């Protein structure tokens, strides 16, 4: 699979929001401030795989997800899918190949339209089937996502959360995409419904050979769904690799605290590690050096100055941490390094 060109390739993706300047800022001639929601991310996703994107609230997960499918303008960098560049104004036949499933299942549906209207519109717009077969197609889609056809003429408001999310999934599937970005797609659902929707997503992925980008803060769900996982911290990938390896033996101190903070319902589970210390720094006022140094328990002098550590390959995965500099090639990478790092 690695020999094949990746379906999605992102290089140096930056999404920056300019903050409004207050009168005080203008008078004191302070420069305009910007918030970097995504601060330079490279990633590639192989066809047919599922990549999990995890991280705390506000780490830029959702913005990244939208940027990858052209729902968010990039400030720098580029994203291509099938070798074609993604942009917010690409033609509709390019849009088809990438769809999104949203966090709020109700907010993702136009409340005035019935299920049938919601599902038939993309089919008509893209002329997926001849006009006389649209109704059959809608029925097929509903059956595929497990929606009874008697819900066809109901509006979003009269469906349950799970049913609403199934409509959202069916709508995404209606244009036969290759890539689906699922942004916290089960976070708003009851736990019992979560499992149903996840199983549906897994079955559809296997059946249709979909490529999945699964954004979630629920590590258990990511572990169940994803082949690879990328851990985001303040708009940067701090660790990336096969899910089992990253979760089984986390390298980056942030991944470790993130995993330790997640409750594990097993009697033989190891005792929980120290919880994350404090809040992440404000993205408008980033610390020098490594973005994680203000909370990192293993931070050394090298972490507190200079540029942020780059994401460096480390075996089958990649880590952005001075403690895991492969150039140093030290076996016990968990120990603090007393000397500064040459960059």
């Amino acid at each position, binding site marked *: 699979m690695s020999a094949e060109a990746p379906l999605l390739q992102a290089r140096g993706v930056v999404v920056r929001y300019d903050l409004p300047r207050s009168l005080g800022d203008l008078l004191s001639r302070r420069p305009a401030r910007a918030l970097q929601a995504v601060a330079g991310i490279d990633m590639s996703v192989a066809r047919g795989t599922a990549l999990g994107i995890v991280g705390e609230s506000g780490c830029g997960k959702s913005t990244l997800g939208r940027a990858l499918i052209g*729902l968010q303008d990039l400030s720098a960098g580029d994203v291509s899918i099938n070798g074609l560049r993604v942009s917010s104004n690409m033609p*509709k036949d390019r849009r088809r190949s990438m769809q999104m499933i949203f966090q709020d299942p109700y*907010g*993702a549906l*136009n409340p005035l339209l019935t299920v049938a209207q919601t599902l038939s519109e993309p089919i008509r717009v893209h002329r997926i089937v001849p006009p006389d077969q649209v109704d059959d197609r809608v029925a097929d889609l509903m059956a595929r996502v497990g929606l009874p056809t008697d819900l066809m003429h109901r509006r979003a408001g*009269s469906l*349950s959360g799970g049913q609403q999310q199934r409509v959202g999934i069916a709508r995404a599937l209606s244009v036969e995409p290759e890539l689906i970005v699922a942004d916290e797609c089960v976070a708003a659902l009851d736990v019992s419904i979560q499992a149903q929707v996840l199983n549906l997503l897994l079955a559809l992925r296997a059946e249709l050979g979909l490529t999945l980008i699964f954004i979630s803060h629920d590590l258990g769900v990511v572990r169940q769904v994803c082949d690879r996982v990328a851990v985001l911290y303040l708009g940067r990938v701090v660790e990336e690799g096969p899910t089992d390896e990253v979760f089984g033996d986390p390298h980056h101190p942030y991944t470790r605290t993130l995993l330790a903070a997640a409750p594990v319902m097993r009697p033989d589970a190891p005792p929980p590690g120290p919880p994350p210390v404090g809040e992440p720094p404000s993205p408008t006022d980033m610390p020098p050096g490594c973005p994680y140094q203000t909370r990192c328990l293993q931070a050394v002098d090298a972490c507190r100055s200079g540029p942020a550590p780059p994401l460096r390959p480390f075996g089958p995965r990649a880590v952005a941490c001075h403690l895991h500099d492969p150039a140093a090639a030290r076996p016990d990478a968990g120990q603090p390094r007393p000397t500064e790092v040459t960059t």
Partner: protein
Amino acid sequence: MRAGAPRRRWPPALKAGLAITLAWVALALLADVIAPFPPNDHNMQAILHPPGRPHWLGTDNFGRDVLSRILHGARVDLLMGVVGVLIPFVIGVTLGAVAGYFGGIVDAILMRILDVVLAFPWLVLLMAIIVVLGPGLKSFFIALALVGWVSYARLVRAQVLVIRSADYVAAGRSLGYSTGRILWRHVLPNAIAPAIVFAMSDVVLVILAGSAISYLGFGVQPPTAEWGLMISEGQSFIFTAWWMTTFPGIALVLLALGFSLLADGLAEYLGVRE
């Protein structure tokens, strides 16, 4: 609750408002049939006839039957109200939706024009334009179009600003829908409810403004039967023939009441907070 919401019942205000409004529409449409006398027929034998047989609401200083004139006047007043609201509604909703969705320079220019129009008292501006254009119903509609759109533009723009960032709009974009499709099919229908509610209460204001302007001599011209004009004509006879002013006034109040109730009921039904 959003999920599994029961079918919404019609609020009593909506039912009452609809009943009164539709009753007036029916009376206006059937004026030719049910009015006992032609509205402009002078009867010199029955000048200033008090209410009673055969003139149930009396006659005016030309012996014209007040009831018949009120029924025929309902046509003019309803037309004034409906057309006078429809034109600004269409203009305002369109401009407000475009400004809110696209933002930027279009929005900035439109909002400044809006501020300027809002800076003048509504009725004074309306009369100034009518005086420039010359009296008549056509001038009244043109003036309303120039002045009235601002309220609708502001209401719709505010809603569109919220709805354009809804997930279903993002979904529409990712599905490759055209901007026009997203704006007219997905954003506007969800943004228009407050404007519809306002339109109902605006009908009242427009009818009253039309009557006021006719009363002042700039609107509908005599001898057309129009309520404001009838009140104006009856003014000099207020002590000898109170019915000439009282009954058109009551008619005006009843029509206004109907549309007010309709506005309140619709607001409740559509879940719009005023």
